[in-house]
């Protein structure tokens, strides 16, 4: 293969999109050609920079509730909506511009009753007669501002704020309160803090992936195995691995760097499998995982303390 051909296909090669034969040709050329190899390294650094991209974007905790309002019936509503409580809740569900006359009348009557009761409980002081004059409507008017702040934070009272108008982001969610997604298979986990904790988590996930490959039973009759999930996972882990390996190297954590370097070829091979891989290809990777005892090495990393990494 010539350099022109190699450079033309290099991005696809790094994306893991080439057929096996073409990928082998590129790999062979890269071993012998320093210029193309340097180009590959440049692209890898570029990829690393992009993998560090963090939008500093969180999923607001209230976003699910806004989605749930319009989809599944609210799961987190502990307040019963039957009978009298539903009636009371409906009074507080504001702003509702479709106020019925009956509701308005009921409100006024209740306001008057409460106002009267309030007046009777107060002992009139001669010098403060005017000041104590009750204002029944304002006392009981269910304006949203009168819902105590503390209540808004209470899940049990969420209806009072969740149903008071249009559904689109009425409440500015707290950006710092997020759903815990530490175990979510996300392709853009933050890379801001590439530290031991990230490495440990990465190694744990890598270990699980390789263990699943090691434990897969490949029967003689199998022709193809669907590895699409494992392939996608491997791609994500591969990108993480590159970042973490370089980070470990910069911080002179050579055992960690060495371990990550050992893992990388396996991740590349899994990432380069087609979605429906040939059984023999899977078997070959499986045997390499067994032979290199990489799973044990990864387990050993987890067992070591942070100071020995």
């Amino acid at each position, binding site marked *: 293969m010539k350099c022109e051909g190699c450079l033309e296909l290099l991005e696809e090669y790094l994306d893991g999109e080439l057929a096996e034969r073409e990928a082998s040709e590129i790999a062979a050329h890269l071993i012998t050609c320093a210029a193309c190899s340097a180009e590959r390294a440049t692209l890898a650094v570029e990829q690393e920079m*992009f993998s560090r991209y963090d939008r500093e974007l969180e999923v607001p905790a209230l*976003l*699910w509730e806004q*989605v749930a309002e319009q989809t599944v019936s609210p799961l987190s509503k502990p307040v019963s909506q039957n009978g009298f409580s539903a009636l009371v809740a409906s009074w507080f569900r504001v702003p509702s511009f479709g106020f019925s006359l009956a509701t308005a009348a009921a409100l006024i009557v209740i306001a008057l009753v409460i106002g009267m009761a309030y007046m009777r409980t107060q002992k009139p002081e001669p010098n403060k007669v005017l000041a104590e004059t009750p204002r029944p409507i304002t006392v009981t008017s269910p304006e949203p501002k009168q819902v105590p702040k503390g209540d808004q934070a209470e899940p049990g009272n969420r209806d009072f704020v969740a149903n008071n108008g249009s559904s689109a982001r009425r409440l500015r969610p707290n950006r710092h309160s997020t759903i815990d997604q530490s175990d979510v298979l996300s*392709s853009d986990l933050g890379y801001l803090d590439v530290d031991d904790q990230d490495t440990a988590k990465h190694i*744990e996930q890598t270990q699980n992936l390789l263990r699943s490959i090691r434990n897969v039973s490949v029967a003689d009759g199998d022709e193809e195995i669907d590895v699409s999930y494992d392939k*996608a996972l491997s791609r994500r882990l591969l990108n993480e691995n590159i970042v973490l390996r370089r980070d470990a190297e910069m911080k002179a954590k050579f055992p960690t760097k060495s371990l990550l370097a050992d893992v990388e070829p396996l991740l590349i091979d899994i990432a380069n499998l087609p979605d429906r891989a040939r059984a023999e290809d899977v078997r070959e990777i499986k045997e390499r995982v067994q032979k290199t005892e990489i799973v044990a090495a990864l387990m050993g990393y987890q067992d070591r303390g942070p100071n020995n990494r």
Partner: protein
Amino acid sequence: MKRLALDELNLEAQPGAFAGTLMNSSRDLVARVCQGDQEAFRLIFDRYSRPVIGFIYDMVSDRDLAEELTQETFVRAYRGIRGMNAETKLSTWLFGIARNVARESLRARVRANRHVDLEDKSVLDLSDNEPVPVERLLSKELNDLICRSLATLDEDKRVVFTLKVFHHCSYEEIADITGFSLAKLKSDLHRARAEMRRRIKPYAGVGYEV
């Protein structure tokens, strides 16, 4: 066809390993939602909301709008999940909806003449600034640089680049999400990479050190 899965591991025995949402395959979750299991939809949201909001943010460059559009994406997903093709990957399907939602919003913004002016001088002047070695770039600066560079790509290139580089989708998945032919997709991706490289290179220094 045999499925190579993590089933052979006793994952629950692994401390912290794939706990919670990952114990349910996407296909199972979709089937459960179709049967009226509301909690399954919550799990889908938990699993995919972060990539979806990230993808939408890359498309619209506006945090508040990204939240609104993520909400719209999941509402549409819930309403349409029964019609989802069983062969389609859930992530691909969700990204497809998110892309449509984002595109509609961008077009509405253009119609309302409130779109971000991509010819904004502050964006295009990126490469004229003094180069700074990549090692000294604070992550915030790098994030800003990537974000602004991304905003200069046209919509087709941006969607392809984002899906490939940030979300690690395969070409086949990107084609499913966007409806682009493989040839267009490869061409757009190559050009997007070249444009991004041109904008970032002055900051990274000539010939990135490996």
